[in-house]
């Protein structure tokens, strides 16, 4: 192999040309993502490939850009293949039993999608056009594949910033949610205990649930039925009882494989010119707005329901309606124990959490349907 020194000088000179300084800035950003993934263990499966990919595509005259662009084209841009396949794995990981024993919990999952629609209004108000505003708002779904799917379907100009914000906030749920929950609830409310009656759910119910949910969502939001369909297909593999090896493969091998490709593919949109904009900071701020109002709305619905119910609901469980599974359920459980060391909320918050997973996908589908209708 010939080593041509002129190539080295040419590439170094590239860094000093107009806008060349942005590339080293992207290396630093990539380094920060890798640091957060390794040192702080924040969503390492995605932040690490994204961080490395950010460095890779921002090298002067990078030969990797073409390959990663091609991955983006076939894996995300053409038919959102990667996020959808990842959903099969996620579906296979989710146990809907806590939700099926107490279906009312699903209302909290629905309420906790308010942040998405509120952020849509906020983003439109400050000047983003409707498709970008909707793509930013979907950060509030707190669900990476849904965010990628919606942002890409709407052909957003800010896909990379949206991905980084979505995955960062998902990792930061234990930091972001507690202060909001404490702000919205009194200690007395946080101490409310809830009985859990473990009831066995029949296999038939578990099998019919993914099929019927797919049909219902498919009828209401046909454009986004792929999202819920793939999630529920994964769950059906898990629950049918005759495809255990497929279920295990979907949960582990398939999900891991796609995650590797997804992270590095998203990095194709992290080129300096696309990423280093003021809008990126605004998008990250709007992501926080979305998470805040998701949490707020879930809690407020629980408080509202307490006005009419005899058995009081601990309002904190509403906060688990954002779909970050199982982190936000754990946050709620921990805060319950903090207020009263005998207050075990895990089963309730897990139920709300899985319902949030389903509701966020439904919200994504509805958002797509309504926004595409006005475009």
């Amino acid at each position, binding site marked *: 192999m010939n080593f041509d020194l002129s190539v080295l000088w040419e590439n170094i000179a590239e860094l000093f040309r107009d806008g060349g300084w942005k590339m080293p800035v992207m290396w630093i950003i990539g380094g920060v993502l890798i640091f957060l993934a390794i040192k702080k263990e924040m969503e390492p499966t995605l932040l690490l490939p994204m961080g490395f990919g950010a460095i890779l595509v921002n090298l002067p005259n990078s030969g990797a850009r073409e390959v990663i662009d091609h991955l983006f084209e076939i894996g995300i841009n053409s038919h959102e293949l990667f996020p959808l396949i990842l959903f099969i794995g996620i579906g296979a990981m989710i146990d809907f039993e806590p939700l099926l024993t107490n279906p009312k919990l699903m209302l909290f*999952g629905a309420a906790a999608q308010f942040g998405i629609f509120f952020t849509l209004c906020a983003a439109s108000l*400050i000047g983003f056009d409707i498709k970008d505003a909707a793509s930013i708002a979907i950060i509030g779904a707190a669900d990476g594949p849904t965010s990628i799917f919606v942002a890409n379907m709407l052909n957003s100009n800010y896909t990379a910033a949206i991905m980084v914000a979505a995955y960062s906030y998902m990792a930061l749920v234990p930091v972001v949610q507690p202060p909001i929950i404490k702000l919205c609830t009194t200690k007395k409310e946080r101490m409310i205990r809830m009985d859990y009656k473990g009831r066995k759910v*029949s296999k038939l*119910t578990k099998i019919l649930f993914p099929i019927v949910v797919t049909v219902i969502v498919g009828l209401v939001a046909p454009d986004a039925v792929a999202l819920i369909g793939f999630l529920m297909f994964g769950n059906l593999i898990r629950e049918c009882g005759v495809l255990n090896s497929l279920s295990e493969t979907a949960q582990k091998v398939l999900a891991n494989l796609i995650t590797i490709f997804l992270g590095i593919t998203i990095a194709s949109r992290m080129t300096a010119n696309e990423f280093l904009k003021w809008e990126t900071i605004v998008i990250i701020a709007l992501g926080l707005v979305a998470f805040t109002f998701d949490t707020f709305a879930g809690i407020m619905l629980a408080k509202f329901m307490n006005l009419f119910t005899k058995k009081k609901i601990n309002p904190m469980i509403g906060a688990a309606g954002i779909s970050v599974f199982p982190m936000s359920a754990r946050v709620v459980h921990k805060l319950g124990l903090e207020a009263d060391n005998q207050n075990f909320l895990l089963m309730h918050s897990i139920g709300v959490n899985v319902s949030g997973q389903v509701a966020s996908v*439904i919200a994504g589908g509805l958002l797509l349907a309504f926004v*595409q209708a*006005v475009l």
Partner: protein
Amino acid sequence: MKKRILSIVVLALIVLSAFALSACGKNGEKEKIYCPVENCGGELLDTSAESNAVYCDKNPLHMYKICANEECGDTIGLGDAYCPDCGASQVACPECGDGEIDGVYCTSCGRQVQKDGKMKFKLDFGALGESAMILCKGMLGIFIVTGVIIAFILVLNTVVEKIRQSKENKK
């Protein structure tokens, strides 16, 4: 009594979701526009909302844009500033209809109508109405769908429990 209330709730939810479904369908429907090139017969597909450009699904080289005047909707050349059919200006602001596009922004209302890679942050209360409507429809839609799913689970749980009980009674 409880069963009766439950069945009324289920019925109401089904009716509401049917309404939501029909509303989605109506909004989503778009009139097909066919390629004006003779003997082509392809369908013109949207490429981007900003440029109003469309291309033929049979031959992507057949590219046009749709007249900005919604009542006209005729296909015109990509570079044309005025529609040869109705004469409508193709450079008027699509938002206010009065001003002209000065590079990126409308000269009358100041709204950003083209991409220049830079975003102009300003409060746009005009766009708020549209997104507020999506907020209302979205939250209503999500509660309807969730309600239908809850009703389904409740009915299913009841049916399964009844079957189990009847089997136990037979034994």
